[in-house]
Structures are given as structure tokens and as C-alpha cells.
């Protein structure tokens, strides 16, 4: 048996004209398949809404309170594990240095002064190299190259400022600006 267009009308819950309704009624008298479709459609549309037992909100509040306590406990444990773990790791890495410092403080003090002097002398050497380059380079580099270099620097600066501005203006999903 041909169920078209009746099956489509029933499946799409089409609003029927009086002529279409008459045609459908005639078809339903002879078609078991479409009668079942129509009956299930009616049954679905007349189905009622079931409400929960009284006191649902109170039960939810109790459950939420339990959940919050569990969440707090979980966070506390997490924090403790993190702190103890961090302290242990720090101790593990720092132990040789602490041991050296405790066993021979003079040796450690000499090494620190030597390191400090090395940084100072390196900085002095770097300053001299830069001053020599600053005296020599202007004679070698043409003025238009300087212009290109300074323009590129300005461009990068602008790009950086715009990206910072855009990132700082972005709002999280679902939160209105």
C-alpha cells in the first residue's frame, strides 16, 4: 500500500487543511501502519509531565552541601600533597648546596665573589665592544638602512601593543562584557 503523502504528514506533524484531513481519515480506515503512526502521535502529544516528589529542592540543597564539603576536602588534600611534594623536591635539589655551604662556608663565599667578579668583568667587556661598534657602524651602514631598521622596530612595537590590547579585551565564553 502507498503511504505517501500521509506518512510524511503524520511524521512531520503537519497542520492539515480540511481536504487533507478528509483524505487522511479515509486512508486511516484502510491502513494499519498509518493508523499506528497516528495513534502514537496522539499518545505522545497527550502524554503528561511527571513532577518529582515534594522536597526536591531541599534534597538538592543537602546534596550540594555534601558535595561542597567533599570538594573542600579534596582541594585541601590536593594542596597538602602539592606543598609536601614541592618542599621535598626543593630539598632534594638544594641538599648538595646546603651541604657544601654548611661544610665549608669560606669556600662557598670565595666562589660567590669569583662569580660576581666574572659577571662584572663580562659586562665591562660587552660595554667596550658596543661602544667600538657604535663608533664604527654609522660609517658603514647607509642612512636608508637605518630608516628601514627603525621602521621595522616601530612596526613590531605596534603589533605587540595591538596584540596585548586584543588579548586583554577578550571575555570568557558565556560571560557578558
Amino acid at each position: 500500500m502507498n503511504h505517501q503523502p500521509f506518512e510524511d504528514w503524520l511524521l512531520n506533524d503537519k497542520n492539515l487543511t480540511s481536504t487533507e484531513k478528509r483524505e487522511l481519515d479515509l486512508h486511516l480506515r484502510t491502513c494499519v501502519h498509518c493508523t499506528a503512526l497516528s495513534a502514537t502521535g496522539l499518545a505522545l502529544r497527550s502524554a503528561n509531565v511527571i513532577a518529582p516528589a515534594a522536597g526536591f529542592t531541599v534534597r538538592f540543597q543537602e546534596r550540594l552541601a555534601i558535595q561542597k564539603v567533599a570538594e573542600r576536602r579534596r582541594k585541601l588534600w590536593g594542596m597538602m600533597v602539592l606543598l609536601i611534594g614541592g618542599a621535598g623536591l626543593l630539598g632534594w635539589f638544594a641538599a648538595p648546596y646546603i651541604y657544601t655551604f654548611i661544610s665549608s662556608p669560606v669556600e662557598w663565599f670565595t666562589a660567590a665573589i669569583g662569580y660576581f667578579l666574572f659577571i662584572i668583568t663580562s659586562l665591562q667587556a660587552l660595554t667596550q665592544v658596543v661602544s667600538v661598534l657604535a663608533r664604527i657602524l654609522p660609517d658603514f651602514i647607509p642612512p636608508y638602512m637605518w630608516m628601514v631598521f627603525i621602521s621595522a622596530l616601530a612596526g613590531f612595537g605596534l603589533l605587540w601593543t595591538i596584540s596585548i590590547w586584543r588579548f586583554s579585551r577578550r571575555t570568557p565564553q558565556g560571560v557578558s562584557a
Partner: protein
Amino acid sequence: MNEEMAWVIQAQQGSDEAFTHLVETYQTPVFNLCYRMLGEPDLAEDAAQETFLRAFQHLHRYDQKRPFATWLLSIAAHYCIDRLRRRKFSMFSMDAEDDEGNTFELPDPDSPDPEAESVKGQTRGRIQGMLKDLDNTDRAAIIMRYWYDYSEAEIAESLRLTVSAVKSRLHRARKELAGLWQEEETRAETERRPYESPAF
């Protein structure tokens, strides 16, 4: 801004009282969806409570451009689908058991219906009984369509499907329900026939 949105915003800012208002407003639709999906009041209660807990925990992710009800029912539907998937083989059997192993009291299909029970009531019971035979996602689509008057686009958004997928799922589910309906009609007719008087 409507009252509901004000509650949502207050709840997002950490007000438990505002969220309680939302629970009071939506307890029935959420419970009904869970009941239609899971078929048992106890399971539905637990699922509805879990839905509100999840909504509370993820409220900061709610997009205010969407209706709150759609977001909430979407959480409920996904939770129920996951739960049904986990309990696929034990759910709805005649010896159905809950997580603790207690058996449910299922209605005896052979017991005579009291006369006071209306035909409409029987039809509703039949529909609930047939819903359990549908695929979980198809069932969610049918419930959203017929209990909540959701459009195909809204169902698609809630169930993370395409509109055409929703349409085909709804058609398939409706045909399946009609098939089950027909089977029951045939069975009822066969059972009735031996007791019928030839005079009628």
C-alpha cells in the same frame, strides 16, 4: 533582563539562593525528562539531582545567548544517555535491579486494570513502556520534541547533532513506536479473541 536571567547571573556570581530559585523553577521539566529517559522514579530523582549539581558546577560555562532551559535539559539528556549506556544490559529487564541490587516492582501486565483507570492513562503507560525500546538518543529526541515542543534545531543543539540527523532520528523513532504499537494491538486482539462470544 528577565527574572530568570537575573537569577542565572546571581548564581554565576556565587549566590546559592539564586540557584535554588532555578532548581525550583526547573525541577519538574528536568525530572520529567529523566523519568522518561530512565523509566524509574528513583533513578530519575538521582539523575535530576545530578543534573542540577553539574549545572551548578559548570554554571560559568553557560552561554547567556542560549535559553537556560535548553542548556539544563541538554545536561540532563546527556547524563541519562551516559547512564543508560553504562547500564545497557541490566536496565529495563523484568528482573531489573538498581545499583544496590534491589529489585524494582514492575507492574504486572496480566493483572486486570481497575475500571477507574481511563483509556488515556493506559495509552500514556503504553507510550512510556514503548519508549524504553528506542535507541537512547532517539528517545531523548522524541521526549524533547513531544514533551517540550522543541524544534528540530533546538534538539540538534541540545544533543549535539545536525538538524538533518535529528529529523531522521525522529522519523525512525516514530516509525519504531508505530511498529511496537501495531504489535501490541495485534497481540491484544489475539488474546481477546478466544474469550469473545461468536454472537458478537
